[in-house]
């Protein structure tokens, strides 16, 4: 069971992620892309009279099974067999985060920022509620996320996907360097 509680190096986890692309194609002619499930759930739950949400979402229900699987995978890897040690980030990363005020670098997420009580502070609201909103809004606007554009699209050598991936990173680098320190100092 040690293989399940220990973190996997990038050269093990990365290839598994990459091979998911041909596995989905060969087993069902499906294209890897996670963010479209957010649209599907909206279409199933609260479509209203919005034309973008009134479509045959059941046709793509395979993807809901796939993300259900991701949730179970997260449960096995994070809840049943969590890594007992903190994520092995570099010294320098740890120093940067400590300088921004973090004290606890254990777990997958900083629990001092991501907890129910923090939700009612401006800091927590910005990180979880505003951050989450931007993930859902931005990925649909871009018509894909790290999996659909960053992996499937790049692997299919599609230049709009390269542009999307560069934009994901540009946005992330900007916020991580210049906005997050401000939020953490609130």
């Amino acid at each position, binding site marked *: 069971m040690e293989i399940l509680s220990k973190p996997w190096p990038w050269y093990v986890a990365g290839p598994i992620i990459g091979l998911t692309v041909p596995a989905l194609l060969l*087993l069902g002619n499906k294209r890897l892309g996670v963010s479209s499930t957010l649209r599907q759930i909206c279409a199933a739950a609260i479509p209203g009279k919005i034309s973008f*949400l009134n479509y045959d979402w059941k046709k793509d229900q395979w993807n809901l099974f796939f993300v259900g699987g991701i949730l*179970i995978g997260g449960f096995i890897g994070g*809840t049943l067999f969590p890594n007992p040690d903190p*994520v092995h980030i570099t010294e320098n990363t740890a120093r940067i985060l400590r300088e921004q005020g973090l004290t606890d670098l254990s777990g997958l997420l900083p629990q001092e920022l991501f907890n129910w009580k923090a939700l009612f502070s401006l800091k927590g609201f910005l990180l979880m509620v505003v951050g989450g909103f931007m993930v859902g809004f931005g990925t649909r606007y871009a018509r894909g996320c790290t999996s659909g554009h960053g992996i499937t699209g790049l692997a299919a050598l599609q230049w709009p996907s390269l542009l999307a991936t560069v934009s994901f990173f540009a*946005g992330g680098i900007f916020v991580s360097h210049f906005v997050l320190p401000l939020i953490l100092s609130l």
Partner: protein
Amino acid sequence: MNNFKYLILGVVFGLALTKGEAVSWFRIQEMFHFESFHMYGFFMTAVPLAALSLFFIRKMSIRSIDGEPIVIPSKAYHHGVIIGGLIFGFGWALTGACPGPLYAQIGGGYLVTLVTFLSALSGTWVYARFKYSFPD
């Protein structure tokens, strides 16, 4: 029952995301600060391997197990690729999660990320509602 195979593939995918720490907020900050090769190594093995598989699938006209020809529809350029892409990037750095990890973080026991997930749903809903007001 036909959908069961996708559930299994999802479990493997989610396990690789979690154990590979791509769902870790700390790893995401490290990546955006260019402090470690870890996440780049992740992408630099995933993407070429997927590309190589696609190359062979095309080259040898391999069909899916149901005998369907495999086609990857091309993603056309629209301005949302850049504008939406930037907005998603902002959110990625704040939450430490792209959509796949959103699901994995909930399963990983960080139940408060259910709120992040619900916010992501509302973001998608608001985009859908006002889709035609945004430059495309």
